[in-house]
């Protein structure tokens, strides 16, 4: 990154990091389920499984925290009426949009990977005698999986929020998509392979642990790695392009 890009990203990071309400809710969404998961296993005298914890964090609640952070990054300038003051500096609108993405990712990962660290440590520390603890390789792969699922959703949220330019609208739509529409679409079997286009399903393909369809994991579709990569890239490219287009063309 150039020095300018770093400065702009730093400024965008400052804007969202200092937004206390968003930060608190993102922390709650990322950490509270992990803490509850670990405490519940402790109360039941069971060893917490990294697989179950990963399902809770990387597939369910981490993406919700990522949505909050991404939407805040995508809308904070325009919702506060500051976008025009940045545009009148002469800086390109695309550059203004682009700096939101790494800033959002930085905060999203800070929050979610912090929660993952707690999960990994808790999984090892609370393991009962005789229960195997996760290997170092699995811990690293699960970390990367958490970064992938939350990062991808965060980037989509930045693009979508920049497109719709409404913070509440974007949050409601994305959370509804994530926790209501996506599982519903996946459950509609007549849709066949079209269901592979659901982002959360494509991301799940990269999990280092096997999630089985069921009460906790929901329905899991199997697809090829190539399809999963294409689906994830398509979501990222489409929403980044739409967000950039809107930022470039809107009347500020």
């Amino acid at each position: 990154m150039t020095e300018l890009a770093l400065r702009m990203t730093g400024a965008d990071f400052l804007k969202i990091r200092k937004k206390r309400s968003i930060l608190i809710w993102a922390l709650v969404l990322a950490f509270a389920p992990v803490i509850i998961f670990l405490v519940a296993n402790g109360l039941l005298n069971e060893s917490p499984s990294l697989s179950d914890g990963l399902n809770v964090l990387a597939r369910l609640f981490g993406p919700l925290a990522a949505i909050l952070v991404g939407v805040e990054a995508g809308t904070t300038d325009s919702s506060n009426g500051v976008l025009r003051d940045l545009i009148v500096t002469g800086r390109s609108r695309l550059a203004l949009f682009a700096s939101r993405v790494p800033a959002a990712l930085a905060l999203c990962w800070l929050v979610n990977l912090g929660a993952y660290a707690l999960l990994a440590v808790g999984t090892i520390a609370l393991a009962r005698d005789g229960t195997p603890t996760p290997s170092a390789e699995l811990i690293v792969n699960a970390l990367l999986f958490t970064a992938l699922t939350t990062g991808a959703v965060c980037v989509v949220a930045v693009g979508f929020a920049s497109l719709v330019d409404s913070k509440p609208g974007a949050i409601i739509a994305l959370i509804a998509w994530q926790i209501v529409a996506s599982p519903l679409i996946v459950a509609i079997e007549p849709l066949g392979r079209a269901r592979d286009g659901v982002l959360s399903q494509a991301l799940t393909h990269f999990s280092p642990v096997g999630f089985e369809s069921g009460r906790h994991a929901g329905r899991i579709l199997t697809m090829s790695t190539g399809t999963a990569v294409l689906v994830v890239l398509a979501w990222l490219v489409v929403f980044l392009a739409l967000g950039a287009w809107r930022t470039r063309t809107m009347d500020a």
Partner: protein
Amino acid sequence: MDSDLAVETHGLTKRFGARTALDGVDLRVPRGCAFGFLGPNGAGKTTMIRTLLGLTHASAGSMWVLGHPVPAERAVALQRVGAIVEEPRFHPHLSGRENLHVVAAVRCPETEERIAPALARVGLSERADEKVKSYSMGMRQRLGVARCLLADPLLLILDEPTNGLDPAGIQEFRVMIRALVEQEGRTVFLSSHLLDEVEKTCDAAAIVDRGKIVTQGPIAEISRGGDGARNELIVGVDDVDSALRVLAVSELVHESTRSDDGVRVVLSGAPETAAGVNAELVRAGVGVVRLEPVRHSLEQRFLEITARLDEKAPEEVRT
């Protein structure tokens, strides 16, 4: 394009659907002065500013800012421009200093060094680390100017800068604008619907109404009504009827009428001919107790112009 001008536009037009907000505007803003962009609400002032700054696209016409064509060289043109469009807006959850940091990060690297001097320049150093949501309107306006100063601007564009300020704040703001022009040699382009504000603050102005520039030039010239302006006198006399008879046949006088405080005289020539009028009255035995040039105000001129436009286009509805 004239390099002595801070802003120049030719035939600038902006349409929103069927409505024309700017209608072939030819504007010339000289460098190194405070320039008022005066017009009633809805006349097109903010649209003009937004178009100049690239916040919205022009429908037709050409424009130059600090000698650079925009939008072609917009980035270069705006490097030395500071602007407040409508009310100054900030991230309320950040401090004043952090808000300036956000804008400085988008400008060139040396902008960071200007944050502290800019805050000092507007008298906000002591409260710079408080969150902006705790700032008064006046403080926000001053922070807005500080944000403009980060560009070390050759041109400041301020849209209705005294809106929401109390009288003391307005006075303070006026002094600051004059200092920016007189002490620092910057150009200030100030839009306002307040005639008094423009008259007291600016050296030159343009009057805009319904998207068109009605007149532009130095304030004194506009107030007088341009080069062909009328030179008027109020003459206090001891006998109004006799004075009117004398003035009716005088070659120095274009028109004379009775007024509350004597006789109102429109001179045929330059203001200096007032001495001749005095001499003619005295020679005719009329006692002259007062001879005072009529000072034309911008307000008077503005009302004359807009009234004339109303007569010309009664069917138009002001937007």
